[in-house]
Every structure is written in structure tokens, then in C-alpha cells.
């Protein structure tokens, strides 16, 4: 079977180059008088793609943590939320409720990365020495704490009212909503490809081999003289930082942030996507997330066709299927659809 990986390998130019070109194209359209107006029906389509691309950033980071290094981060949404809220609070102009410092957006982006990485460093430094599954509990608990705090401190975060008036640099430059959605899609796709290229390079390098060695057996790796804790720590921080970037992109795309979006379902979507695609294979993990997000959209579309069944019931059925998929994939195909069983050490 020709996997996505094979097809990608056969391309004459690297994904980093393609990504750079896409970024350049979107910037040309944004910064020069060149103008496109996509047809109106594409708007929701592009909005869904943007969501998928944001999840793509999350899964690349998570895959470095779990797929390559074996760290079970079950609170990935926390870093995403910290990134989003840091970016929003640094840049929002006089929001109705909550803090808005009104800095230009690059400050927000840098702040988001720093804040998410700092949270990652804090959790990593304290928990990575413990049994592997304790990290899952701590990260899950941190995500819950953060979600509660974001909802409760209305004076700072805007609470359930949401923090608004966050600058939308792309929407401002693009003019119309349709053009904005399309150019955001192109720009984010480009950025995701560049990120993918960087992380892929990282995991293919000797550095990545050490990470996989840690995943396979920590003690042996330690015996070889590698600083296991240091490797785990930095892999965790890098993954957190990229989730922070995704959070900032989310905030600047939407122009507001609210706790309702940063729930455990983000974590579950990213995890199931990665496990379905293939942990340890960045490309497969991104496609896996695409499958799950696409599945979500397909059921939403189906629901509109069958109005007799309530949206809530549909959501229940969808989540049941996602759970069932998770159980089945771990049991029967633990390497995911395109993962390498030998590399992951799951071949029986």
C-alpha cells in the first residue's frame, strides 16, 4: 500500500519548501493590492479547514511528545488555551470584560509561545520523573483547573462572556470574510507544513532516535549515557510551545476566545486522530486528525439532513463511535493506519 508517507517522500520538493511558498503566496495577496474573492459557499468550507489545520499544529506537538518520546500528555488543550488566552489578553483593545493590553499582534504571538512553553516546563520539570501514567493525570488535572479558572475569573479572562476585540490581522488586511477565510487557510496550511518540516527533521535526526530509544526503554537509554530527563523535558516543552502557537493563531483568526472552546474534547480529538493515523509518524498523525475532524463535519452535515434526531443525540452517537474507534484501534492496530509497528514496539 502506498502510504501518505511514500507519496510525500516522492515529491520533488520538501514540505518545508511547499509550506514556505504557501506562506509567501498568502502574504503577497494580503500585502499587495492583488485581490481574490472566492465564492460565498466556500466560507464554511474554509472555516472547517482552518479548524483542522489548528488541530494539525496540536497533533504535531503531541506526536513529538507521545509518538516519539512516549510522554502521555492528556491535557494538551491546556497549552492551546494558555497560548490563546495569552495572545488575546496581550493584544485585545478595550474588551467589554477582561484584560486587554492592546499590544500589537506579534507581541501576543511571542507571549503565547513563551507562556505555553513555561507551563510545559513547569509541568515537565515536576512530573517527568514519575511513572509515565502520572503525567496523564497531572496534565488532565491542569487542563481542568485551567478551564475552571478561565471561566471563573471573569474580570481577567472575560469568563463565559468571552474575551473580545482581539485584533484579526488577516481579516483586517483581506477585507471580506470570504477572502479572509481563504487566505487564512493558505497561510495556516503553509505554516503547518513548515512546522511539520521542522518537527519531522527533528525526529529524523539523531536527536529523534534518542527520543525513540527513550520511548522503547528509558533505562537502556540512560545506560548509554543520555540525559533521559533532559530529552523528555525538552520534547515536552517543544510540544507545549507549538500548541501555544496554535492557540495564538486561533485567537487572531476568530478575534475572541472563550472557555467553551478549550474543553477536553479538543484533547480527545487530537489524541484519537493521532492514534488512528499512526503515532510516531507526523504525517499520518495529521491525516488521522483530518479523518476525525472530517468525521465530525460529516455527522454534522448528516444531522442537518435528518432533523428528526436532535443535535445532542447526534453528538452522543458521534462520541460513542469515536470511543469505539479508539478501543478498536488500540486493540487491533496499535500502530495506527500508517504507523510503523516495529518502530513503536507494538508488534506482537
Amino acid at each position, binding site marked *: 500500500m502506498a502510504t501518505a508517507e511514500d507519496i510525500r517522500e516522492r515529491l520533488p520538493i520538501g514540505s518545508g519548501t511547499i509550506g514556505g511558498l504557501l506562506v509567501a503566496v498568502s502574504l503577497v495577496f494580503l500585502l499587495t493590492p492583488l485581490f481574490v474573492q472566492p465564492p460565498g459557499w466556500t466560507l464554511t468550507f474554509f472555516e472547517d479547514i482552518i479548524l483542522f489545520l489548528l488541530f494539525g499544529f496540536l497533533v504535531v506537538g503531541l506526536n513529538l511528545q507521545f509518538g516519539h518520546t*512516549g510522554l*502521555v500528555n*492528556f491535557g494538551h488543550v491546556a497549552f492551546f488555551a494558555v497560548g490563546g488566552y495569552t495572545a488575546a489578553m496581550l493584544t485585545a483593545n478595550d474588551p467589554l470584560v477582561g484584560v486587554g493590553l492592546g499590544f500589537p499582534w506579534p507581541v501576543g504571538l511571542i507571549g503565547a509561545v513563551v507562556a505555553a512553553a513555561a507551563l510545559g516546563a513547569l509541568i515537565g520539570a*515536576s*512530573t517527568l*520523573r*514519575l*511513572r*509515565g*501514567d*502520572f503525567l*496523564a*493525570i*497531572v496534565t*488532565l*488535572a*491542569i487542563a*481542568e*483547573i485551567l478551564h*475552571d*479558572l478561565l*471561566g*471563573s475569573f*471573569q474580570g481577567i479572562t472575560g469568563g463565559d462572556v468571552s474575551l473580545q476585540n482581539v485584533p484579526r490581522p488577516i481579516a483586517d488586511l483581506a477585507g471580506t470574510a470570504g477572502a479572509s477565510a481563504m487566505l487564512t487557510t493558505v497561510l495556516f496550511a503553509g505554516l503547518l507544513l513548515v512546522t511539520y518540516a521542522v518537527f519531522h527533521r527533528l525526529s529524523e535526526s539523531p536527536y529523534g532516535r534518542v527520543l525513540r530509544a527513550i520511548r522503547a526503554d*528509558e533505562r537502556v537509554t540512560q545506560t548509554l549515557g543520555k540525559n533521559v530527563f533532559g530529552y523528555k523535558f525538552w520534547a515536552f516543552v517543544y510540544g507545549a510551545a507549538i500548541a501555544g502557537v496554535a492557540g495564538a493563531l486561533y485567537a487572531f483568526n476568530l478575534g475572541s476566545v472563550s472557555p467553551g472552546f478549550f474543553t477536553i474534547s479538543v484533547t*480527545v480529538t487530537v*489524541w484519537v486522530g493521532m*492514534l488512528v493515523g499512526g503515532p510516531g509518524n507526523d504525517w499520518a498523525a495529521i491525516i488521522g486528525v483530518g479523518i476525525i475532524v472530517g468525521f465530525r463535519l460529516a455527522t454534522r452535515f448528516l444531522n442537518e439532513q435528518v432533523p428528526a434526531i436532535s443535535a*445532542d*443525540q447526534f*453528538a*452522543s*452517537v458521534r*462520541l*460513542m463511535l*469515536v*470511543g*469505539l*474507534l*479508539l*478501543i478498536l484501534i*488500540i*486493540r487491533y492496530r*496499535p500502530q495506527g493506519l500508517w504507523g510503523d509497528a516495529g518502530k513503536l514496539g*507494538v508488534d506482537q
Partner: protein
Amino acid sequence: MALPFVQELIFGVVTGSYIAIGAIGFTMVYGLVNMINFAHGEYMTVGAYLGFVAAESLGLPVTLALVPVMLVSGFAGWALAWLVFEPLSDTGPIPLLLTSIGLGLVLRNGIRLVASPEKRYVDLNATTFRFDDLGFFVTGQHLLLFAVTAVAVVGVHLFLTRTTMGKAMRAMSDNEALAKVTGIRTRRMRAIVWILASAFAGLAGYMLAIGQGATPHTGFSQLLLVITAAILGGAGSVYGAVVGAYVLGITVSLAIALLPSWASELGTTMAFVVLVLVLLVRPGGITGEEVSA
């Protein structure tokens, strides 16, 4: 004269009791099957809804319905474990943990699909004992809960210390390989642990349905508290989990009382703060279990 904090302490002990019953099962599974069962919360929800069936549809008296609720929860939990977890018993803790998240999703949303989202109660029809002079009250639900928890804890203690099976269970929790060569049938022990743990989870859910009412999300919202109690007590230690549950319940209850009103929703958040602090300061919990990588 109203005694300060007595009411909060009572609420704390009530919360602690729910968590304790839930945490007993969780920590047993952790100790013996060596997995963190993220579906444990849903096992509790199942117990709550079995309670609605037993007490309302079948018309059993509330206290008598305990027996069928525990029996059915126990065997349902064991059947699920046999179907879902047992085939993975050689793969280590992480695949088991991920599978339990999947199972939790299936169960939670399955219940959501068949049950209405409104909160439902099992009506105990109990009186409230007021001590207005001293400034506190105790409800019949509270008293039933205390009694059930006491019986459960003593029962588990006697089981673990006085029966061959309980001793075998402790031996296996300590060192599975050694237990196996001593002739303990580890597969059967795992099955028994699943039955016991699920029965206690069902009991916890049923008590929640009596005391606070239950929704399809009840178990999941209690899950982190249960995990926190189990870790606070030293993961795998049943006694530790019970102590941890009460420490946690009282912490949450006092936090709610002492925090300003806008932050009162953060009472449960305090529990997670406790969890993170315990893991940072003393990850082995009260009993100091071995947890380093």
C-alpha cells in the same frame, strides 16, 4: 451558640464518603491490574442509573435496592473488563489507559443517548435532623451514606486481612510474578477485582443518586476527585484511598466556605491543586507507594 465550621465539616465528610467508595474500587484496579481506569467514573454513573431502574421502575425500597445495584454493576464491570481490557493485559499501562478513555466515551455518551440530561434523584423520603442552636443539620441521606461507607470500609478491611482471597489479592498487588509462582491464579484474581471494584463504583454512583441526584455526567465529574483521593492515599492502597478521600472532601468543603462567593465554583479546582501538589511533593501519597519511573 453556632459552632463554626461544623456544617462545613459534615459536608466535607459527605463528599469524602462518596469519593471514598469510588476510590476503593479505583485503587484496587490500579494496584492489581496496574491501570488507571478513566472509565471508572462511568461505572459510577451506571450504578446511579441502575438505581433509578431498581428503586423507581421495580419499586424496591431504597436501601434494599443497594444489593441488585451492586451485583449488576459488579458483573457488568467485569464483563466489560473481560471484553475490553483483558485482551490487552500484556501491553503495559498506557494502552490500557487509552482504552479506558475510549470505553468511558462510549459509556458516557451511551447513557446520554438513552437518559434525559436532567438531574434525577432516588427519593429516600428521609427526615432532616436540625440542630439550630449549634448551627448545623444532618439529613437522613447523610446518615445512610455514613453507614454505608462505614460498612463498606470495614467489609473491605476484613476481606483483605481475614480471607485467603483478600490475602492473595494483596500479595498479587505487591508482586504479580511472585504471586503467580506461589500458585495464586492471577487471571481469576483480576476478574474478582473487577467485580469488586465495579460493584463499589456502582454503589458510589447509587449513593450520589440518593444524595445529590445524578446526570449522565455525574461519574465523569467525580472521576478526578476519585483519582486524586487514590493518589493522595498512595495509588494501590485501599486504606490510603479512604483517608485521601476524606482529606480531599474536607479540603473541598472548607475551600468552598472560605473562598469569596465569586470563586465558590473553584472548590473542586482546589482538589486538583491538591492533586498536583501531592504529586510534586510526595508522589507516593500518604502510604509512600513506589511511583518513580
